[in-house]
């Protein structure tokens, strides 16, 4: 978020470095049920981001003192692979990944019907295979598809997207350059049914008007991602139906 660069992030025509317009998302690919040994899993690509999420549970809560007799707890681990960024990322948890794990777990807790599984734990593992800005959003998007794939009862599926500001303009779904040399980065996640915001952070600064504009953009984009998430789950399970019907 240095904001100091000669790089022209948005040209005079309002086109960004990767050819997108201000309110345009990167290409998104979502697949559900990609891992065999996890109870639920998902793979998400958003532009150059590649994320895999796995869900186990509900199962017995392991460090016993974390158990909650009234509801299940959600334990989340966000991890970046050593090769996910251009300079090798030192493996292991660090301040940033602990923070991201916590906010993702809290966002998921707002939709999962945890009261159905007292004393249990639902474990979510998010692995970032390749990072290009907006990995926490991609991670949360993948995690909620994986939760649904695991058959865990939840009110809705959560989509997430980052909005930001670069070259003085509000942009949707920042890429690496816009994130590094821009002026603000605002990840948003919401419950599409009620438009309740379950994750909102801001790094950098924006004016009030820019922020309102950013939120509006983010909400619309989340609904777009939401459709892709649902589509991924439907594809996965209707494919199983078709496959067998073809055998007959």
């Amino acid at each position, binding site marked *: 978020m240095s904001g100091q660069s000669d790089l022209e992030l948005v040209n005079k025509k309002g086109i960004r470095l990767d050819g997108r317009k201000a309110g345009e998302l990167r290409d998104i690919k979502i697949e559900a049920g990609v891992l065999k040994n996890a*109870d*639920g899993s998902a793979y998400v690509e958003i532009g150059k981001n590649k994320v895999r999420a796995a869900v186990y*549970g*509900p*199962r*017995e809560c392991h460090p016993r003192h974390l158990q909650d*007799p*009234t509801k299940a707890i959600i334990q989340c681990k966000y991890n970046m692979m050593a090769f996910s960024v251009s300079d090798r990322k030192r493996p292991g948890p660090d301040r940033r990944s602990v923070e991201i794990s916590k906010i993702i777990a809290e966002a998921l807790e707002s*939709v999962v*019907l945890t009261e159905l*599984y*007292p*004393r*249990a734990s639902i474990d979510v593992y998010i692995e970032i295979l390749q990072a290009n800005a907006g990995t926490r959003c991609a991670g949360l998007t993948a995690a909620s598809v994986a939760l*649904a*794939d*695991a*058959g*865990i*009862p*939840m*009110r*809705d*599926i959560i989509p997430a997207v980052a909005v930001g500001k670069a070259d003085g303009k509000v942009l949707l779904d920042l890429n690496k350059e816009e994130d590094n040399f821009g002026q603000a980065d605002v990840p948003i996640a919401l419950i*599409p*049914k*009620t438009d309740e915001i379950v994750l909102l952070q801001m790094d950098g600064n924006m004016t009030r008007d820019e922020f309102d504009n950013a939120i509006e953009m983010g909400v619309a984009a989340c609904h777009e991602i939401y459709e892709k998430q*649902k589509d991924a*789950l*439907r594809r996965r*399970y*209707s494919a*199983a*139906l078709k496959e*067998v*019907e073809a*055998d*007959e």
Partner: protein
Amino acid sequence: MERKQVGAREVVVPGDLLDDGGMRPGNGAYVLDGRIYASRLGVRNVSSGTVGVIPLRGRYMPAPGDMVLGMIVDIGPSNWLVDINSPYPAPLHVNEVPWKVEFGDTSRFLKIGDMIMAKILMVDESMKVQVTMNDSGLRKLEGGRIVEISHSKVSRVIGKSGSMIQMVKNMTDCRIFVGQNGRIWVDGEANEAGVTVEAIKMIEREAQTSNLTERVREFIGSKIGPAEE
């Protein structure tokens, strides 16, 4: 395939609208602003004014009266701890077994790793589960093998009023016990038992299709011959 027809097969994901008034919410459904939404991944199911979701995935949740297959995972002086393939382990008290067990003598009767047939005695609101072996036919399982399938496919393995399982039993001459928790015990001649296990896996794989009983019959027939001598 006709859609929206009552009872029509339709895959729903969490948050999908099931009904906007008139019906009652069943399993896997919740109400928001008078509309009924799905709370889990599955197939939409309507029966007598109630709309719900038949889950396609998910863990087994114990319910009182369920017959399950459990594995002993821990032994206490007056009870055993049984893994019933659910998020919660179930204690089996010495009063709930068909033998007379002295205090501290529990490990003589059931050892860690033993498989038992058990019935869920009770489940309270904090999901404390208790199982019993005091019911006809419940016993420790000796020999045979265990197949694990998704618990949501158990009803398909059993079939309408037991038609599927009866057919498999008759054709393979194996002893089979199906636990509600998705564990199935199969015992018989090595070859027949192997075919039975394959047949069960086939039922799990193709659970959503129609005319499955016929195809399973053909499958078993092709492996070991159509009928007994």
